[in-house]
């Protein structure tokens, strides 16, 4: 019986892999079919997969706009890193303090509750007006995108720390400040990291939006350029790269979390 179940499990597992692979291959084949083989889609509407692949390769060597592919990736990377850095440096301390000191919470909450429902992308026109179309406006928008999820999660993490931990620390003679830094903050790290993860995802969206609206470099600009020049293969190249960049960022945060929050099991 056990062996039968095991074999059944293996069979289902294999069937799943076969189905998954054939699904991706089928998708590529269909794409190839409507573009190259049957020519149902003109190249300015949907380029063939190999054209996208060659564009990806070509742009490593030949510039698109003012930069080569690597330059665009680098430009996006700098913006996202600076934006995330600023947002974390502001949001985490503010969240910790708001979660810990009730008066500060009462002062800051009303302002935050008014600003929070505004999508970060809606700040773009104001950001351009304030900071021009350079690095400043993009960093500002990304920072707003990352700021709120990080702040909220930090706040919730600090506010709802297991009271038992705090009482235990008090019994052991810890002072207020010790409890905050040695009990409450470490205990809320998992929630903070979860907030950062949501924030960075949102930040990637803000990056793309900001670069679509006004930029002369970056992956969002590449995507826009493809649309403007009727070269959808360029847009798809940019979309693939931004997807890869987002995945890498997400994986890095997860790995960081596992390292820092070693006590939390999967």
């Amino acid at each position, binding site marked *: 019986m056990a062996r039968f179940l095991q074999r059944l499990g293996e069979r289902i597992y294999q*069937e*799943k892999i076969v*189905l*998954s692979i054939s*699904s*991706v291959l089928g*998708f590529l084949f269909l794409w190839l079919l409507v573009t190259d083989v049957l020519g149902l889609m003109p190249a*300015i*509407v949907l380029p063939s997969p190999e054209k996208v692949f060659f564009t990806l390769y070509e742009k490593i060597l030949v510039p698109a706009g003012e930069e080569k592919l690597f330059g665009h990736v680098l430009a996006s990377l700098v913006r996202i890193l600076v934006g995330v850095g600023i947002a974390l440096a502001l949001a985490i301390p503010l969240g910790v303090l708001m979660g810990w000191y*009730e*008066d500060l*919470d*009462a*002062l*800051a*909450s*009303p*302002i935050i509750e*008014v*600003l929070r*429902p*505004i*999508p*970060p*992308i*809606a*700040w*773009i*026109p*104001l950001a*351009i*007006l*304030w900071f021009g179309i350079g690095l400043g406006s993009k960093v500002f928008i990304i920072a707003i995108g990352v700021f709120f999820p990080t702040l909220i999660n930090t706040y*919730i993490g600090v*506010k709802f720390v297991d009271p038992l931990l705090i009482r235990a620390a008090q019994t052991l003679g810890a002072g207020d400040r010790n409890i905050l830094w040695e009990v409450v903050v470490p205990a809320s790290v998992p929630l903070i990291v979860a907030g950062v993860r949501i924030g960075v995802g949102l930040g*990637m*969206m803000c990056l*793309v*939006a900001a670069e*679509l*609206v006004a930029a002369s470099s970056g992956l*969002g600009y590449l*995507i*826009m350029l*493809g*649309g*403007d020049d*009727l070269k*959808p293969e360029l*847009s*798809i190249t*940019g*979309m*693939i790269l*931004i*997807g*890869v960049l*987002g*995945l890498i960022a*997400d994986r890095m945060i997860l790995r960081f979390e596992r390292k820092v929050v070693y006590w939390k099991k999967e």
Partner: protein
Amino acid sequence: MGANKRGPLSRKTILAVVSGAGVIGVWFALTAVFRVIPPAFLPPPQNIVTDFLRILGSPYVGHTLIGHTLVSLQIVLGGFFSALLIGIPLGILMGWFKRIEAIVDPLFQLLRPIPPLAWIPLSLLWFGIGIQSKIFVIWLSAFVPCVINSYTGIRLTEPLLVKAALGLGVTRQRDLLREVAIPSALPVILGGVRIGLGAAWMTLVAAELLASDAGLGYMMQMARRALEPSVIILGMLVIGILGALMARGLRVLEKRLCPWVKEEEH
């Protein structure tokens, strides 16, 4: 959150009023009294009220404020509801039938890391700058969370519930899905709907900033060109208020549909 109700004016309320009044006071002082900040940069608060009354009555770049709002609402709701209509059933089927999951999931994982906003240029190429291209990207942005949450919700169905139903004589798969799995997944599904709604608003703004001839995003973009930050701020406020109202509506619906779920977080 706080529970110290001593008299009609708690410390918390007083602090909230102080903070709100403080922000507006500083804003007023900097822009209207000392005139440190020029009005093309940040208008004094009273300008926002007068501009609100102005564009409420007479058209601004084509429509009144209400007209722009209706255009935006139509697009958001169109994209959002079509995403629910397709995303939730697809997610449920993926969660329930292993084969459908094996086929759809790899494609989904391939496309998911690309921020929906990044589709805007391609969408413009495919559907033109009319309403369809915007509905398409908004559909995409709300579709992804709807699928993921419906799928996860079904997957998280307590096996004990399924066994109990089987023990009580439910034999047909369809009944099991309809009577057990879907109701138990409902809170998670509605969570996805809420995320999708937020994503839909973000995408709307980006799409309207990039290419449109009406709507709140368009109004804000035009106001930026005309150096009228008060109209930009008005647009941000309307978007924020509408988004918050719709999220509130979803909460109410959630409480109606799943009365067994405990009130969490805020």
